[in-house]
């Protein structure tokens, strides 16, 4: 198929998304891409997983089809379904099928949120077969040579109820993401939020406080994304303390006691 008319064209990424490599994740991903190995990105929320995939898709020049998994997602939501038209039913490819057929990176965000039976759809795609059977249509699609599957998964939410099946986990190359080192993270915050490095450094110190409270009242610490949002508030003229309250303290917990403690700890960070 001619690339210029591919239905995936609208999934192409035009400008380079900013991504600050932390470790060797870029080279590992590139190597995985060479062999079209499925990749699993693990890490807490807001640490740059999605941005990384976007960056890599741009770098490799492939379209990126992103699907946010949710609790009620079914196999049909991924693979496609029949729709009713005036002439009868017609088949509509789902996002996964689209990427498989035309060759793109399919990114399933927060895959654990989906029902476990849904994830089984990706099994034949992630081993040597690289096929997607569409039982409703009686069709077996052989994946386009440029198809690659990427999933993300937050182990913090991992629990007995929501966990990837062992058979799913073992099909992927895994890249572990975490918040970058303070200096790197401050650089990212400064760049993305348009603040000076000093403020960004302060925000990273504050984030450190919240991250150390993980499991001590907070489920997750403040993410890099949260810091960027807070930094933007400050850059937009909101006083620092108010911005920290609106950008970090209030969103991160509903527990009044934890909030108070967090307020005290953050106050200790502020000059």
């Amino acid at each position, binding site marked *: 198929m001619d690339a210029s008319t591919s239905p995936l064209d609208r999934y192409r990424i035009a400008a380079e998304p900013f991504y600050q490599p932390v470790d060797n994740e870029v080279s590992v991903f590139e190597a995985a891409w060479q062999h079209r190995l499925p990749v699993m990105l693990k890490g807490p929320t807001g640490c740059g997983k999605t941005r990384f995939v976007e960056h890599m898709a741009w770098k490799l020049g492939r379209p990126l089809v992103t699907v946010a998994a949710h609790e009620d997602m079914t196999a049909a939501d991924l693979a496609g379904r029949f729709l009713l038209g005036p002439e009868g039913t017609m088949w509509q490819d789902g996002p996964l099928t689209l990427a498989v057929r035309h060759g793109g990176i399919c990114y399933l965000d927060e895959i654990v949120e989906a029902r476990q039976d849904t994830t089984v759809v990706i099994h034949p795609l992630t081993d040597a077969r690289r096929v997607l059977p569409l039982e409703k249509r009686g069709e077996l699609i052989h994946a386009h040579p440029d198809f690659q599957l990427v999933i993300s998964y937050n182990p913090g939410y991992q629990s007995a109820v929501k966990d990837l099946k062992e058979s799913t986990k073992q099909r992927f190359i895994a890249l572990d993401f975490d918040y970058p080192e303070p200096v790197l993270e401050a650089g990212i915050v400064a760049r993305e939020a348009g603040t000076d490095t000093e403020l960004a450094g302060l925000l990273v110190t504050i984030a450190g406080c919240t991250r*150390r*409270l993980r499991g*001590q009242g907070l489920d997750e610490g403040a993410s890099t994304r949260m810091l960027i949002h807070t930094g933007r508030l400050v850059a937009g003229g909101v006083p620092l303390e108010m911005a920290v309250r609106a950008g970090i303290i209030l969103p991160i917990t509903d527990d009044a006691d934890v909030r108070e403690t967090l307020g005290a700890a953050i106050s*200790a960070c502020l000059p």
Partner: protein
Amino acid sequence: MTLPTASLPTLNLAAPAPSAATPFGDELRRQMHGRALLRASFEETWQALRRRYEPAALEPWATGVLELAKVNAGPGCLLAFWRASVTLGRRLPPDALGAAGLGAAGLAAANVCRAAGAPAALAVIEAFERIAERLDAEAQRRWWTMMTATAQGAPDEIALFAGHMPTLLARGSLAEVEAFATAGRRAAGRDRARRRAFFALEDPLSRRLLARMGAGPGFAELEVGLRRLLAALWGDRPGFPPSLQPLPVPEIGDAPRRANIAGPVIRLPEVFSGVTGAASHALYRAASAHAGAHLAYGGPRFTLGKVKPVQMACINLIEDARIETLAMARFPGLRRLWAPFHVTAPSAEPLAALLLARIARALFDPGYQDPDALIAKARALFAERSDRLDDPALSFDIGTRLANDLGQRRIRFDARGHVVEPAYRDDGLGLWDFGEENAERTEEVELAVDAARIERREEENAPQPPEAAPQPEPTGRARPAPADERGRIVARYPEWDAQAGLERADWTTLREVEPALGDPRTLARALERAGPLRARIARLVRAAKVGRAVRLKRQVEGHALDLDAAIEAAVSRRVGETPDERVFTASALRQRDLAVLVLLDTSESTRERLPDGASVLDIEKLAVAMLAEAMAGLGDEMALAAFASAGRDDVRYIHVKRFTERYSEDGAARLAGLQSGLSTRLGAALRHAGEEIAGVRAFRKLILVLTDGEPSDIDVDRPSDLVADARRVVLGLRARGIDTFGVTLDPGGVGSGAAIFGTTNTMPVRRIDDLPMRLSELYFRLARR
């Protein structure tokens, strides 16, 4: 009209004519006129009150006095009550204390008199006169209720209590005094000597309660937040968050308590006396941040060697400044937290304590001005080393030099009475290694550290606060001892004799034992320590609460087309049939309808200690408490029971929480009160648990058995018989729609759990520490099925 005539002096000497409007007033006056001793005083009081109140309004008051007279309170009481009525009537506005309030007071005083006699009532009335001004009408009513209750519970001590009332109310609120009275009645029980000492404020417990009054929020309320604060600040360092422990408050008049660091443990006063509200909050935060900074930036402990107390104090001081400077370099906002406590100002008094506090301030606050040369020297020495603050040796060095200067100026240092200032700083003893050289230590240092030693001893031996002490039995509810020990017989159950292949009817006797109450706070503390685990379980609860959506096909309405149904409908229409209109899919949340009974094995083997000092039973309790929280959060029907046995005629079954009650503090106290002992006759206990859960209406019924060993009993030679019996019960329950699941603490993996519960219904737990999480996970897994 009788109104104006009643106040005419000429008529006063005669008994009043009976009147329908004021029957009690008239009756009272009639009676009092008959008593020569009281007549004049009464008239005086009556006149005084009449000037303030209408006769109709005086009716309640008259009722009160009549009641006092009726219970034979005696002239002393009556006179005191009249005097109080007049004085308080004059001093207080009617809305604070009206004639009705006075009347209620009279009735209550009569009740005190009934319970504890006239002298007690007299003391209470006199106390009332002295404290009534502090209380509003509602509080006065509560005060009288408290006094009546105390008079009933402690008739011999009520007068003492009343005598101390002004002191008590000056220190604490009415609620605190109420708590004090309740604590006294409970703590002393029937021990009259102790009760007397308590209400005379001579008992250590009552002294401590008194010291705690009017302060707070204290350690107990703030502990969780403080631990979180330390975790947030230095949680990435080893040993954080440190364990926080309370220090008992000093008695009134003793030196104020400071925080204390003992190895990795930060010990904070239960309360900082006289500090309340937001100030208390701030002080606790400042104190724990300071102690946390010691743990984060401190080095190994200094060796005591021949260091004198004054040197010790100076070294501590510099070390405090050093770690605070380091802490503030990382967290500049800590300065705002500590600054308000540095309030010392220059003064001419050559007192070591004052000088030390001034040095502390000078090193903390660069803007502080002080003319004293010593202070300038301290600053200079400290500034000189500001690039090597990481080295604790500088504290030793600078401190020793400052101490020498103090010595040369002949400023006396009071080692015994020295209290570190400002108040948020720790006592500094944690910085020192006192080593083994007890004999070489100077007398003075011994004195200084004595205080800390005594404290520690006190804490170990101190009587538990009343709410923590196990209350085997509420006072006044005696039960015959044997029944208490072995419990009430509630059922006889058969037992399967595997060898004979027959069921022996009525073979076991099951007794329900009254649970002993433990301290729910130990459990709460253990739960608090298991924070991350608890958070994970809480997440499970949230996930399970939302419930899993079930897809409903062929619905009349819904959010999407049911494709199969739509095609069928289209086909029907084309062939001319009436199509089925139910062509939508919908989703609905599945309702939970589940009842769970958790059966806890408390046999002797659960007494076994783990390396960290907790017993197996402790972990079981923690696991069950977590599960109970989770289940309460989900609103599932839930019961907790424990069992143990001593032969077939003594199988004991303890209801920790029944299906009908809510899981609350009481349930937690009963759970905490479970003790290890006896054997494991599982079959009989399971039969009884089955009976209990059978009566509950629920779609799914589940018995979770938590056991650490093999079924066994003192009168059974072959434990395999009991295994067979338990297996038979499990099968029987399954036939009745009750699932039984075994969680077996089975480090070796050789237990008979699978033989009893079946392979799929057993979960052997290899590491007992895993139990809490595994149990909850299991529950969620089962609940989903």
